[in-house]
């Protein structure tokens, strides 16, 4: 193939333009990514999809979560905090047994946020439900209001805290969806552990993003929420329930 002068100039100009524009386009991409200083955006809604047909008897998700967030017990199961737990189900009629990881369901309309008198329980624009440790007065009304029993009250002095997961006696806490990891562009610790050492049952992603794996799965496969009758539109969804 031979190029005449006119063609050479045309291709050359196109290549030069591409070289000039590409970094700019890349910059736009970078500019659209969230910086640590930037507030969470309602353009995203973070969620989890858990396929309980793949969930085995292991508890790597629980261990990983509590390690990541420095949630340690005092050997008092009634008062020790649990951010995520394995729930075992057995059908009352048939005896069919299942197990699943269960945690804060990150509702779109969270009852814990509704009842909190000081606004310490809050939902980020991207759907993550959190507790502001500075304004929680420890009234436990959110624990009363949560339909999923997902919250823990810190009953005694805590030690070994992680910098990313502040905790304090006399306040309430629950799964943060590993918000510190999500903000760094990573997946929650439970999901990472499940996919590495467990049954690969958990998918994390943006429920609003049509191109995300979680959105594709929810679009094409059956799934359900726990207590859908409450119309809370949970961010955590289950398959095989």
């Amino acid at each position: 193939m031979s190029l005449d002068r006119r063609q050479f100039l045309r291709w050359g100009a196109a290549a030069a333009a591409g070289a000039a524009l590409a970094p700019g386009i890349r910059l736009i991409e970078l500019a659209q990514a969230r910086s640590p200083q930037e507030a969470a955006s309602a353009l995203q809604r973070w969620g989890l999809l858990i396929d309980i047909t793949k969930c085995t008897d292991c508890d790597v998700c629980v261990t990983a979560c509590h390690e990541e967030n420095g949630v340690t017990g005092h050997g008092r199961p009634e008062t020790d905090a649990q951010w995520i737990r394995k729930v075992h189900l057995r059908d009352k009629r048939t005896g069919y047994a299942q197990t699943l990881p269960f945690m804060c369901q990150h509702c779109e309309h969270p009852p814990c946020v509704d009842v909190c008198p000081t606004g310490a329980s809050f939902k980020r624009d991207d759907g993550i439900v959190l507790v502001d440790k500075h304004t929680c007065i420890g009234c436990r009304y959110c624990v009363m209001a949560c339909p999923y029993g997902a919250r823990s009250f810190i009953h005694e002095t805590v030690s070994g805290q992680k910098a990313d997961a502040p905790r304090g006696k006399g306040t309430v806490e629950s799964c943060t969806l590993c918000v510190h990891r999500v903000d760094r562009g990573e997946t929650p610790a439970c999901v990472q552990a499940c996919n590495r050492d467990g049954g690969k049952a958990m998918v994390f992603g943006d429920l609003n993003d049509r191109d995300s794996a979680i959105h594709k799965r929810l679009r094409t496969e059956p799934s359900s929420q726990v207590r859908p009758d409450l119309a809370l539109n949970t961010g955590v969804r289950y398959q095989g329930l």
Partner: protein
Amino acid sequence: MARTHYSEIEGRSPGFYALLSGLGALILAGLGAAWYMEHNGHYVTGMSNRIVWGVPHVFAVFLIVAASGVLNVASIASVFGRDLYKPLARLSGLLALTLLAGGLAVLVLDLGRPERMIVAMTHYNFKSIFAWNIFLYTGFYAVVALYLWTMFERRMNDYSKPAGLFAFVWRLVLTTGTGSIFGFLVAREPYNSALLAPLFIVMSFSYGLAIFVLVLMAACRWSGRALGDVVLNRLRNLLGVFVATVLYFVAVYHLTNLYIARQHEVERFMLWDGGIYPALFWIGQVLIGGILPLALLFGIASRRATAGAAACVIAGGLAQVYVLIIGGQAYPQLMFPEKEVSSSFFDGVVAAYAPSLPEVALSAGGVALALALTAVALKVLPFLPRSLADGDVGSAAA
């Protein structure tokens, strides 16, 4: 009608100081318990992640509900124009303030972070019924204080009817707010009913009047003031009506649930096989708090029977609030219908709870605070009529 004369109680007798000392000791024990719980954390109590509200909340809710109800006596006088109740109105207003103080003290001292009350006063989420209640409770103080002023200050007497009406409406809203703390909770099957708001209002009528009757009888007896049968019989009949109304609302609440298939399990738990809770319901709430007082009030016309009935109403009322608050949490939350549920976090099982000494001490401290404030106020200001003898109030009885 002769003008009612009020006077302070003398408050110098050894009995008065013994009473204050006893109450003071209980208040100190309550403060000590609060410090102990705050210092160690709530693991030293009987409360847990499944029973987050325990005995302190039972007493706090009881006292707050009773506080709004005890004002009823004053409301009957100024809003509904019953002159017989007018001499009782000041004491009614006083008890409304002191019972609320006792209840709120317990509630606040049980918080995980009681030192953060300033946060609760400066950060509001107006969708929270708790946040409304902060305004309703503090507003109640202002409204009742104003109402008392219109009663005490002769030049303001003409305004006592509108002030009383305002206080009456305020207290109805307040008790609705207290009932709605539970009524608006969708997460728990035993709550989640609009009926809880009116139920709390009739409970307040009943508990408040029972406390009023006992305090009035004790105050008149210990300060040597006459308390005639006319006043007492009227209060006795009224208490009987209130007790019966509470029983009616409780019956409607349970019958509604019994009719709804998905509520059958809850009713079975609360009324039959829930261990301590059905026992407290039938023996405490219904028998001691309902049937026995009705028999005493309408069957035996004696002062001792009236006082006994009032004491039964208080005991039964505490049982009722215990069953509601703690039984309501003990019953496992329904998350997976038709499944047996188990986990390391006590899902699917009845949560265990045993009241601990610090909780009981804090609760008793709140009651003692309310009574001590009442005793001191009676000594400082003329809340109590010099005489409630039949001749002094009888002309107004018609």
